[in-house]
Protein backbone atom coordinates (compact mmCIF):
# COMPACT_ATOMS: atom_id res chain seq x y z
CA UNK A 1 0.00 0.00 0.00
CA UNK A 2 0.95 3.66 -0.48
CA UNK A 3 2.10 5.97 2.28
CA UNK A 4 -0.91 7.80 3.71
CA UNK A 5 1.10 10.96 4.24
CA UNK A 6 2.88 11.64 0.97
CA UNK A 7 1.07 9.10 -1.22
CA UNK A 8 4.30 8.48 -3.14
CA UNK A 9 6.45 5.81 -1.53
CA UNK A 10 5.36 2.39 -0.29
CA UNK A 11 4.12 2.30 3.29
CA UNK A 12 6.43 0.27 5.49
CA UNK A 13 5.34 1.03 9.05
CA UNK A 14 2.13 1.61 10.93
CA UNK A 15 2.24 4.19 13.70
CA UNK A 16 -0.32 5.31 16.25
CA UNK A 17 -0.92 9.04 16.64
CA UNK A 18 -2.38 10.82 19.65
CA UNK A 19 -3.67 14.28 19.12
CA UNK A 20 -5.91 16.21 21.43
CA UNK A 21 -9.52 16.27 20.44
CA UNK A 22 -9.41 12.92 18.69
CA UNK A 23 -9.17 9.25 19.47
CA UNK A 24 -5.74 7.74 18.75
CA UNK A 25 -5.58 6.70 15.13
CA UNK A 26 -3.24 4.70 12.97
CA UNK A 27 -1.36 5.77 9.88
CA UNK A 28 0.56 3.68 7.39
CA UNK A 29 3.66 5.57 6.39
CA UNK A 30 6.75 5.32 4.25
CA UNK A 31 10.17 5.33 5.87
CA UNK A 32 10.84 9.03 5.51
CA UNK A 33 7.39 10.23 6.61
CA UNK A 34 7.62 7.84 9.56
CA UNK A 35 10.94 9.34 10.58
CA UNK A 36 9.35 12.78 10.59
CA UNK A 37 6.35 11.58 12.58
CA UNK A 38 7.94 9.41 15.24
CA UNK A 39 11.19 9.66 17.20
CA UNK A 40 11.28 5.88 17.47
CA UNK A 41 11.16 5.43 13.70
CA UNK A 42 13.80 8.11 13.37
CA UNK A 43 16.00 6.13 15.72
CA UNK A 44 15.61 3.04 13.57
CA UNK A 45 16.51 5.03 10.48
CA UNK A 46 19.57 6.46 12.16
CA UNK A 47 20.63 2.95 13.06
CA UNK A 48 20.40 2.09 9.40
CA UNK A 49 22.72 4.94 8.54
CA UNK A 50 25.24 3.81 11.16
CA UNK A 51 25.32 0.59 9.24
CA UNK A 52 26.07 2.41 5.99
CA UNK A 53 28.91 4.36 7.61
CA UNK A 54 30.28 1.11 8.92
CA UNK A 55 30.14 -0.52 5.51
CA UNK A 56 32.09 2.37 4.01
CA UNK A 57 34.64 2.10 6.75
CA UNK A 58 34.97 -1.61 6.19
CA UNK A 59 35.55 -1.13 2.47
CA UNK A 60 38.17 1.54 3.07
CA UNK A 61 39.80 -0.64 5.68
CA UNK A 62 39.89 -3.57 3.32
CA UNK A 63 41.53 -1.50 0.59
CA UNK A 64 44.26 -0.38 2.97
CA UNK A 65 44.68 -3.94 4.18
CA UNK A 66 45.11 -5.19 0.66
CA UNK A 67 47.67 -2.57 -0.10
CA UNK A 68 49.75 -3.22 2.97
CA UNK A 69 49.40 -6.96 2.88
CA UNK A 70 50.32 -7.12 -0.77
CA UNK A 71 46.95 -8.56 -1.75
CA UNK A 72 47.06 -11.73 0.31
CA UNK A 73 43.50 -12.92 0.83
CA UNK A 74 44.19 -14.51 4.20
CA UNK A 75 45.66 -11.34 5.60
CA UNK A 76 42.83 -9.21 4.34
CA UNK A 77 40.45 -11.49 6.22
CA UNK A 78 42.61 -11.02 9.30
CA UNK A 79 42.30 -7.26 8.95
CA UNK A 80 38.52 -7.48 8.89
CA UNK A 81 38.32 -9.49 12.06
CA UNK A 82 37.52 -6.56 14.40
CA UNK A 83 34.01 -6.74 12.98
CA UNK A 84 33.45 -10.27 14.24
CA UNK A 85 33.33 -11.04 17.96
CA UNK A 86 36.14 -13.53 18.65
CA UNK A 87 34.24 -15.05 21.58
CA UNK A 88 30.93 -15.88 19.90
CA UNK A 89 31.60 -15.35 16.19
CA UNK A 90 28.79 -12.84 15.75
CA UNK A 91 29.26 -10.53 12.80
CA UNK A 92 28.61 -6.85 13.44
CA UNK A 93 26.19 -6.83 10.51
CA UNK A 94 24.03 -9.40 12.35
CA UNK A 95 23.84 -7.02 15.26
CA UNK A 96 22.91 -4.14 12.96
CA UNK A 97 20.09 -6.20 11.50
CA UNK A 98 18.66 -7.58 14.75
CA UNK A 99 19.90 -5.08 17.35
CA UNK A 100 20.86 -8.14 19.40
CA UNK A 101 24.42 -8.90 20.44
CA UNK A 102 25.82 -12.43 20.56
CA UNK A 103 27.52 -12.59 23.94
CA UNK A 104 28.73 -10.37 26.80
CA UNK A 105 32.14 -10.01 25.11
CA UNK A 106 30.52 -8.39 22.07
CA UNK A 107 30.46 -5.13 24.06
CA UNK A 108 34.27 -5.08 24.06
CA UNK A 109 34.64 -6.55 20.59
CA UNK A 110 32.48 -3.86 18.99
CA UNK A 111 33.04 -1.09 21.52
CA UNK A 112 34.04 1.66 19.05
CA UNK A 113 31.05 1.33 16.78
CA UNK A 114 28.65 0.25 19.51
CA UNK A 115 29.23 3.39 21.53
CA UNK A 116 27.65 5.44 18.76
CA UNK A 117 24.47 3.44 19.29
CA UNK A 118 24.76 3.78 23.05
CA UNK A 119 24.91 7.54 22.67
CA UNK A 120 21.77 7.46 20.56
CA UNK A 121 19.85 5.24 22.96
CA UNK A 122 21.07 6.59 26.27
CA UNK A 123 22.95 9.87 25.57
CA UNK A 124 25.77 8.16 27.47
CA UNK A 125 28.42 5.51 26.89
CA UNK A 126 29.40 4.65 30.46
CA UNK A 127 27.64 3.00 33.35
CA UNK A 128 27.30 4.87 36.63
CA UNK A 129 26.36 3.02 39.75
CA UNK A 130 27.75 1.70 42.94
CA UNK A 131 26.60 -1.90 42.71
CA UNK A 132 28.95 -4.40 44.21
CA UNK A 133 29.58 -7.09 41.77
CA UNK A 134 31.06 -10.49 42.18
CA UNK A 135 31.47 -12.57 39.05
CA UNK A 136 30.75 -16.28 38.98
CA UNK A 137 33.44 -18.86 38.35
CA UNK A 138 32.11 -19.13 34.83
CA UNK A 139 32.50 -15.41 34.19
CA UNK A 140 36.05 -15.55 35.55
CA UNK A 141 36.85 -18.44 33.26
CA UNK A 142 35.42 -16.52 30.33
CA UNK A 143 37.83 -13.66 31.08
CA UNK A 144 40.78 -16.01 31.40
CA UNK A 145 39.82 -17.71 28.14
CA UNK A 146 39.73 -14.39 26.32
CA UNK A 147 43.15 -13.40 27.68
CA UNK A 148 44.69 -16.78 26.87
CA UNK A 149 43.36 -16.66 23.31
CA UNK A 150 44.82 -13.26 22.62
CA UNK A 151 48.11 -14.21 24.22
CA UNK A 152 48.20 -17.34 22.06
CA UNK A 153 47.79 -15.15 18.99
CA UNK A 154 50.74 -12.96 19.97
CA UNK A 155 52.85 -16.00 20.87
CA UNK A 156 52.26 -17.42 17.39
CA UNK A 157 53.10 -14.09 15.80
CA UNK A 158 56.52 -13.98 17.46
CA UNK A 159 56.93 -17.72 16.86
CA UNK A 160 57.25 -18.59 20.55
CA UNK A 161 56.01 -22.14 20.04
CA UNK A 162 56.79 -23.31 23.56
CA UNK A 163 54.57 -20.64 25.09
CA UNK A 164 51.93 -21.32 22.44
CA UNK A 165 51.79 -25.01 23.32
CA UNK A 166 51.39 -24.15 26.98
CA UNK A 167 48.58 -21.71 26.19
CA UNK A 168 46.86 -24.21 23.92
CA UNK A 169 46.69 -26.68 26.82
CA UNK A 170 45.50 -24.00 29.17
CA UNK A 171 42.74 -23.02 26.74
CA UNK A 172 41.56 -26.58 26.43
CA UNK A 173 41.53 -26.93 30.24
CA UNK A 174 39.50 -23.76 30.65
CA UNK A 175 37.11 -24.85 27.94
CA UNK A 176 36.46 -28.22 29.48
CA UNK A 177 35.91 -26.70 32.94
CA UNK A 178 33.43 -24.25 31.40
CA UNK A 179 31.67 -27.10 29.67
CA UNK A 180 31.36 -28.92 33.01
CA UNK A 181 29.85 -25.86 34.67
CA UNK A 182 27.47 -25.15 31.82
CA UNK A 183 26.06 -28.64 31.65
CA UNK A 184 26.02 -29.20 35.39
CA UNK A 185 28.30 -32.23 35.13
CA UNK A 186 30.91 -30.89 37.50
Amino acid at each position, binding site marked *: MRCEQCGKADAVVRITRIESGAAPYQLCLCQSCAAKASPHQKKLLEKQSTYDVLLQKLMKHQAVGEFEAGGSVAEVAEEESPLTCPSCGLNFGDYQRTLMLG*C*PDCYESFSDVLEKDLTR*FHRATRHTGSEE*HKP*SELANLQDRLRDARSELKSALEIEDYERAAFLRDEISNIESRMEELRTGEA
Partner: protein
Amino acid sequence: MDAKLFDRTDSWLKGGAGDTGHIAVSSRARLARNLGGFPFAPHAKPPALENVEKYIAEGIGRCERLGAFERLELAKLSGDERAYLRESRLISREMEQGGEHRVAWVSPEESTSILVNEEDHLRLQVVRTGLGIRDALEALKEIDAALADVVGYAWSERYGYLTACPTNVGTGFRASVMLHLPGLRQLKEIESGLQGIGHHGLTVRGFYGENSEFTGDFYQISNEITLGRTVDEIMDTLMLVVNRLVEKESEARLELFRHHESSVADAIWRSYGTLSFARRIGSSEAMRLLSMIRLGIDKGWFGDLSHAALNRLVLEVQPAHLERRRGREGKFDSRDEARAAFLRERVQAANGHHKDAAS
Protein backbone atom coordinates in the same frame (compact mmCIF):
# COMPACT_ATOMS: atom_id res chain seq x y z
CA MET B 1 -0.97 -26.25 34.75
CA ASP B 2 -1.96 -26.17 38.39
CA ALA B 3 -5.44 -24.62 38.46
CA LYS B 4 -4.79 -23.11 41.88
CA LEU B 5 -1.95 -21.06 40.46
CA PHE B 6 -4.43 -19.18 38.26
CA ASP B 7 -6.49 -18.24 41.27
CA ARG B 8 -3.50 -16.59 42.88
CA THR B 9 -2.05 -14.78 39.87
CA ASP B 10 -3.93 -11.55 40.41
CA SER B 11 -3.20 -11.16 44.09
CA TRP B 12 -1.11 -8.05 43.39
CA LEU B 13 -4.41 -6.24 42.85
CA LYS B 14 -5.26 -6.59 46.53
CA GLY B 15 -2.82 -4.08 47.96
CA GLY B 16 -4.05 -0.63 48.95
CA ALA B 17 -3.62 1.84 46.11
CA GLY B 18 -2.90 4.84 48.36
CA ASP B 19 -4.13 8.39 47.91
CA THR B 20 -3.20 8.53 44.23
CA GLY B 21 -5.04 5.27 43.52
CA HIS B 22 -7.74 7.05 41.52
CA ILE B 23 -5.09 7.96 38.94
CA ALA B 24 -2.16 5.57 39.35
CA VAL B 25 -3.36 2.06 38.48
CA SER B 26 -0.28 -0.12 38.82
CA SER B 27 3.50 -0.14 38.84
CA ARG B 28 6.06 -2.56 37.54
CA ALA B 29 9.82 -2.75 38.09
CA ARG B 30 12.03 -4.95 35.94
CA LEU B 31 15.71 -5.88 35.74
CA ALA B 32 17.43 -7.46 32.73
CA ARG B 33 20.31 -9.77 33.63
CA ASN B 34 22.54 -12.25 31.80
CA LEU B 35 24.94 -14.96 32.83
CA GLY B 36 28.66 -14.47 32.28
CA GLY B 37 30.17 -17.14 30.06
CA PHE B 38 27.05 -17.98 28.01
CA PRO B 39 25.97 -16.63 24.62
CA PHE B 40 22.99 -14.24 24.76
CA ALA B 41 19.63 -15.89 24.14
CA PRO B 42 18.56 -14.29 20.82
CA HIS B 43 21.46 -15.77 18.82
CA ALA B 44 21.94 -18.88 20.97
CA LYS B 45 21.28 -22.43 19.71
CA PRO B 46 18.83 -24.66 21.62
CA PRO B 47 21.56 -26.65 23.45
CA ALA B 48 23.03 -23.39 24.80
CA LEU B 49 19.58 -22.22 25.91
CA GLU B 50 19.07 -25.56 27.61
CA ASN B 51 22.37 -25.12 29.48
CA VAL B 52 21.37 -21.63 30.58
CA GLU B 53 18.03 -22.90 31.84
CA LYS B 54 19.63 -25.79 33.73
CA TYR B 55 22.28 -23.55 35.25
CA ILE B 56 19.68 -21.08 36.50
CA ALA B 57 17.33 -23.81 37.77
CA GLU B 58 20.21 -25.35 39.69
CA GLY B 59 21.08 -21.94 41.17
CA ILE B 60 17.49 -21.19 42.18
CA GLY B 61 17.32 -24.66 43.74
CA ARG B 62 20.16 -23.69 46.06
CA CYS B 63 18.58 -20.37 46.97
CA GLU B 64 16.45 -20.31 50.10
CA ARG B 65 14.94 -16.90 49.30
CA LEU B 66 13.50 -18.26 46.06
CA GLY B 67 12.29 -21.56 47.52
CA ALA B 68 8.59 -20.78 47.08
CA PHE B 69 8.86 -19.94 43.38
CA GLU B 70 7.10 -22.32 40.98
CA ARG B 71 8.78 -23.36 37.76
CA LEU B 72 6.61 -23.18 34.63
CA GLU B 73 7.89 -24.43 31.29
CA LEU B 74 6.32 -22.17 28.71
CA ALA B 75 6.35 -24.84 26.01
CA LYS B 76 4.17 -27.06 28.21
CA LEU B 77 1.46 -24.46 28.75
CA SER B 78 -1.43 -23.91 26.33
CA GLY B 79 -1.76 -20.65 24.42
CA ASP B 80 -4.72 -19.69 26.65
CA GLU B 81 -2.71 -20.32 29.80
CA ARG B 82 0.17 -18.24 28.54
CA ALA B 83 -2.19 -15.43 27.56
CA TYR B 84 -3.72 -15.57 31.04
CA LEU B 85 -0.33 -15.21 32.69
CA ARG B 86 0.51 -12.31 30.39
CA GLU B 87 -2.75 -10.53 31.21
CA SER B 88 -1.95 -11.06 34.89
CA ARG B 89 1.41 -9.42 34.14
CA LEU B 90 3.45 -12.39 35.35
CA ILE B 91 5.00 -13.00 31.93
CA SER B 92 5.84 -10.68 29.04
CA ARG B 93 4.31 -10.57 25.59
CA GLU B 94 7.55 -12.05 24.28
CA MET B 95 7.30 -15.01 26.69
CA GLU B 96 3.67 -15.52 25.73
CA GLN B 97 4.95 -16.79 22.38
CA GLY B 98 6.29 -19.83 24.23
CA GLY B 99 9.43 -21.54 22.92
CA GLU B 100 11.87 -24.23 23.92
CA HIS B 101 13.85 -23.84 27.14
CA ARG B 102 11.89 -20.81 28.19
CA VAL B 103 10.82 -20.92 31.81
CA ALA B 104 8.94 -18.62 34.17
CA TRP B 105 9.59 -18.88 37.90
CA VAL B 106 6.61 -17.28 39.55
CA SER B 107 5.59 -16.28 43.03
CA PRO B 108 2.04 -14.98 42.58
CA GLU B 109 1.69 -13.90 46.22
CA GLU B 110 4.64 -11.56 45.83
CA SER B 111 3.57 -10.68 42.27
CA THR B 112 7.09 -11.55 41.26
CA SER B 113 8.43 -13.49 38.34
CA ILE B 114 11.79 -14.55 36.99
CA LEU B 115 11.71 -15.13 33.24
CA VAL B 116 14.41 -17.35 31.78
CA ASN B 117 15.60 -17.15 28.17
CA GLU B 118 13.45 -14.27 27.09
CA GLU B 119 15.50 -11.62 25.26
CA ASP B 120 17.92 -11.81 28.18
CA HIS B 121 18.80 -14.91 30.19
CA LEU B 122 16.99 -13.39 33.13
CA ARG B 123 14.22 -10.86 33.41
CA LEU B 124 13.17 -10.23 37.00
CA GLN B 125 9.99 -8.34 37.60
CA VAL B 126 7.68 -7.22 40.36
CA VAL B 127 4.20 -5.71 39.96
CA ARG B 128 2.40 -3.59 42.53
CA THR B 129 -0.93 -1.87 42.66
CA GLY B 130 -1.19 1.94 42.52
CA LEU B 131 1.95 4.01 42.73
CA GLY B 132 3.83 1.19 44.46
CA ILE B 133 6.90 1.50 42.26
CA ARG B 134 9.40 2.11 45.08
CA ASP B 135 8.04 -0.87 46.95
CA ALA B 136 8.33 -2.93 43.77
CA LEU B 137 11.94 -1.83 43.36
CA GLU B 138 12.84 -2.84 46.92
CA ALA B 139 11.37 -6.30 46.39
CA LEU B 140 13.18 -6.53 43.07
CA LYS B 141 16.56 -5.63 44.58
CA GLU B 142 16.18 -8.45 47.05
CA ILE B 143 15.48 -11.03 44.33
CA ASP B 144 18.35 -9.61 42.28
CA ALA B 145 20.81 -10.00 45.16
CA ALA B 146 19.63 -13.54 45.87
CA LEU B 147 20.12 -14.55 42.23
CA ALA B 148 23.46 -12.78 41.88
CA ASP B 149 24.76 -14.97 44.70
CA VAL B 150 23.90 -18.20 42.95
CA VAL B 151 24.39 -17.53 39.22
CA GLY B 152 26.83 -14.64 38.63
CA TYR B 153 25.94 -11.95 36.12
CA ALA B 154 27.56 -10.69 32.93
CA TRP B 155 28.98 -7.34 33.93
CA SER B 156 31.62 -4.84 32.88
CA GLU B 157 33.07 -1.82 34.65
CA ARG B 158 32.43 0.33 31.62
CA TYR B 159 28.95 -0.78 30.61
CA GLY B 160 27.43 -2.20 33.79
CA TYR B 161 25.03 -5.13 33.36
CA LEU B 162 25.45 -6.49 29.86
CA THR B 163 22.23 -7.16 27.99
CA ALA B 164 21.47 -8.80 24.64
CA CYS B 165 20.11 -5.54 23.28
CA PRO B 166 22.16 -2.42 24.05
CA THR B 167 18.96 -0.46 24.70
CA ASN B 168 18.86 -2.14 28.15
CA VAL B 169 22.54 -2.10 29.08
CA GLY B 170 23.84 -0.40 32.23
CA THR B 171 21.31 -0.79 35.00
CA GLY B 172 19.08 -3.15 33.01
CA PHE B 173 16.34 -1.36 34.91
CA ARG B 174 12.91 -0.47 33.62
CA ALA B 175 10.26 1.10 35.81
CA SER B 176 6.79 1.66 34.52
CA VAL B 177 3.68 3.21 36.00
CA MET B 178 0.21 2.85 34.52
CA LEU B 179 -1.86 6.00 34.80
CA HIS B 180 -5.54 6.56 34.11
CA LEU B 181 -5.91 9.98 32.48
CA PRO B 182 -9.52 10.46 31.32
CA GLY B 183 -9.62 14.06 32.58
CA LEU B 184 -6.66 15.23 30.52
CA ARG B 185 -7.96 13.35 27.51
CA GLN B 186 -11.43 14.89 27.72
CA LEU B 187 -10.03 18.38 28.20
CA LYS B 188 -7.82 17.67 25.17
CA GLU B 189 -4.72 18.28 27.25
CA ILE B 190 -3.17 14.84 26.85
CA GLU B 191 -0.76 15.92 24.16
CA SER B 192 0.59 18.88 26.09
CA GLY B 193 0.62 16.83 29.29
CA LEU B 194 2.80 14.15 27.75
CA GLN B 195 4.95 16.56 25.80
CA GLY B 196 8.62 16.55 26.66
CA ILE B 197 8.49 13.12 28.23
CA GLY B 198 11.12 11.89 25.76
CA HIS B 199 13.34 14.72 26.88
CA HIS B 200 13.54 13.09 30.32
CA GLY B 201 14.51 9.73 28.78
CA LEU B 202 10.98 8.45 29.35
CA THR B 203 8.40 7.06 26.99
CA VAL B 204 4.66 6.43 26.97
CA ARG B 205 2.81 3.31 25.86
CA GLY B 206 -0.78 2.09 25.93
CA PHE B 207 -2.43 -0.49 28.18
CA TYR B 208 -1.18 -3.41 26.14
CA GLY B 209 2.42 -2.21 25.94
CA GLU B 210 4.50 -1.54 22.87
CA ASN B 211 2.64 -0.14 19.85
CA SER B 212 -0.72 -0.42 21.56
CA GLU B 213 -3.33 2.28 21.50
CA PHE B 214 -4.38 4.22 24.54
CA THR B 215 -7.40 2.04 25.17
CA GLY B 216 -9.54 3.19 28.08
CA ASP B 217 -7.39 6.27 28.75
CA PHE B 218 -4.63 4.11 30.25
CA TYR B 219 -1.08 5.38 29.72
CA GLN B 220 2.10 3.57 30.79
CA ILE B 221 5.02 5.84 31.58
CA SER B 222 8.43 4.18 31.67
CA ASN B 223 12.12 4.96 31.34
CA GLU B 224 13.96 4.27 28.08
CA ILE B 225 17.41 5.29 29.22
CA THR B 226 19.22 2.63 31.26
CA LEU B 227 22.87 3.67 30.87
CA GLY B 228 24.75 6.54 32.49
CA ARG B 229 22.19 7.02 35.27
CA THR B 230 21.80 5.13 38.51
CA VAL B 231 18.66 3.22 39.34
CA ASP B 232 17.79 5.90 41.89
CA GLU B 233 18.24 8.71 39.37
CA ILE B 234 16.02 6.87 36.91
CA MET B 235 13.39 6.44 39.64
CA ASP B 236 13.56 10.10 40.65
CA THR B 237 13.06 11.29 37.08
CA LEU B 238 10.15 8.93 36.55
CA MET B 239 8.50 9.93 39.84
CA LEU B 240 8.93 13.59 39.04
CA VAL B 241 7.10 13.22 35.75
CA VAL B 242 4.49 10.80 37.13
CA ASN B 243 3.70 13.04 40.10
CA ARG B 244 3.32 16.01 37.81
CA LEU B 245 0.92 14.03 35.60
CA VAL B 246 -1.07 12.91 38.64
CA GLU B 247 -1.37 16.52 39.71
CA LYS B 248 -2.41 17.68 36.24
CA GLU B 249 -4.98 14.90 35.99
CA SER B 250 -6.42 15.83 39.41
CA GLU B 251 -6.79 19.41 38.26
CA ALA B 252 -8.29 18.30 34.96
CA ARG B 253 -10.92 16.21 36.76
CA LEU B 254 -11.84 19.12 39.02
CA GLU B 255 -12.12 21.39 36.03
CA LEU B 256 -14.14 18.79 34.13
CA PHE B 257 -16.70 18.46 36.88
CA ARG B 258 -16.76 22.16 37.65
CA HIS B 259 -17.40 23.38 34.12
CA HIS B 260 -18.71 20.41 32.17
CA GLU B 261 -20.52 18.40 34.81
CA SER B 262 -23.69 17.72 32.88
CA SER B 263 -21.97 16.37 29.79
CA VAL B 264 -19.46 14.32 31.80
CA ALA B 265 -22.17 12.94 34.06
CA ASP B 266 -24.22 12.08 30.98
CA ALA B 267 -21.31 10.17 29.43
CA ILE B 268 -20.60 8.34 32.68
CA TRP B 269 -24.21 7.30 33.25
CA ARG B 270 -24.60 6.24 29.64
CA SER B 271 -21.57 4.00 30.14
CA TYR B 272 -23.19 2.66 33.27
CA GLY B 273 -26.37 1.99 31.32
CA THR B 274 -24.56 0.07 28.62
CA LEU B 275 -22.59 -1.98 31.13
CA SER B 276 -25.79 -2.74 33.04
CA PHE B 277 -27.87 -3.89 30.11
CA ALA B 278 -25.86 -4.68 27.00
CA ARG B 279 -25.83 -8.29 25.80
CA ARG B 280 -22.53 -8.22 23.93
CA ILE B 281 -19.46 -6.17 24.69
CA GLY B 282 -16.08 -6.38 22.97
CA SER B 283 -12.90 -5.90 24.97
CA SER B 284 -11.98 -2.42 23.77
CA GLU B 285 -15.55 -1.17 24.24
CA ALA B 286 -15.46 -2.60 27.77
CA MET B 287 -12.24 -0.72 28.46
CA ARG B 288 -13.78 2.52 27.22
CA LEU B 289 -16.91 2.10 29.33
CA LEU B 290 -15.00 1.06 32.44
CA SER B 291 -12.78 4.09 32.01
CA MET B 292 -15.86 6.32 32.36
CA ILE B 293 -17.11 4.36 35.38
CA ARG B 294 -13.69 4.74 36.96
CA LEU B 295 -14.08 8.50 36.63
CA GLY B 296 -17.52 8.34 38.28
CA ILE B 297 -16.07 6.45 41.25
CA ASP B 298 -14.25 9.69 42.20
CA LYS B 299 -17.68 11.20 42.79
CA GLY B 300 -18.86 8.25 44.87
CA TRP B 301 -21.57 7.48 42.33
CA PHE B 302 -21.12 3.75 42.24
CA GLY B 303 -21.46 2.66 45.82
CA ASP B 304 -19.35 -0.36 46.58
CA LEU B 305 -17.27 -0.11 43.45
CA SER B 306 -13.81 1.11 44.44
CA HIS B 307 -10.92 2.07 42.18
CA ALA B 308 -9.24 -1.18 43.19
CA ALA B 309 -12.33 -3.22 42.32
CA LEU B 310 -12.46 -1.48 38.97
CA ASN B 311 -8.80 -2.30 38.30
CA ARG B 312 -9.72 -5.93 38.86
CA LEU B 313 -12.69 -5.65 36.48
CA VAL B 314 -10.44 -4.23 33.77
CA LEU B 315 -8.22 -7.28 34.14
CA GLU B 316 -11.08 -9.76 34.30
CA VAL B 317 -12.62 -8.62 31.01
CA GLN B 318 -9.38 -9.36 29.11
CA PRO B 319 -9.81 -12.25 26.65
CA ALA B 320 -7.91 -15.05 28.40
CA HIS B 321 -9.34 -14.23 31.82
CA LEU B 322 -12.81 -14.21 30.36
CA GLU B 323 -12.20 -17.39 28.41
CA ARG B 324 -11.30 -19.19 31.62
CA ARG B 325 -14.50 -18.02 33.26
CA ARG B 326 -16.52 -18.99 30.19
CA GLY B 327 -14.93 -22.44 30.21
CA ARG B 328 -15.94 -22.91 33.85
CA GLU B 329 -19.50 -21.75 33.39
CA GLY B 330 -19.95 -23.22 29.93
CA LYS B 331 -23.11 -21.31 29.05
CA PHE B 332 -22.12 -18.60 26.58
CA ASP B 333 -21.83 -18.94 22.83
CA SER B 334 -19.39 -16.10 22.41
CA ARG B 335 -16.79 -14.32 24.45
CA ASP B 336 -18.51 -10.96 23.97
CA GLU B 337 -21.72 -12.41 25.45
CA ALA B 338 -19.81 -13.79 28.41
CA ARG B 339 -18.13 -10.41 28.90
CA ALA B 340 -21.45 -8.54 28.83
CA ALA B 341 -23.07 -10.98 31.29
CA PHE B 342 -20.12 -10.76 33.66
CA LEU B 343 -20.08 -6.96 33.54
CA ARG B 344 -23.86 -6.71 34.07
CA GLU B 345 -23.55 -8.82 37.16
CA ARG B 346 -20.61 -6.89 38.63
CA VAL B 347 -21.73 -3.39 37.77
CA GLN B 348 -25.34 -3.84 38.88
CA ALA B 349 -24.33 -5.52 42.12
CA ALA B 350 -21.91 -2.77 43.01
CA ASN B 351 -24.19 0.17 42.53
CA GLY B 352 -25.61 1.09 45.90
CA HIS B 353 -26.10 4.84 45.87
CA HIS B 354 -26.67 5.96 42.33
CA LYS B 355 -29.49 8.21 43.46
CA ASP B 356 -26.80 10.48 44.92
CA ALA B 357 -25.94 11.63 41.46
CA ALA B 358 -29.37 13.01 40.80
CA SER B 359 -29.40 15.02 44.01
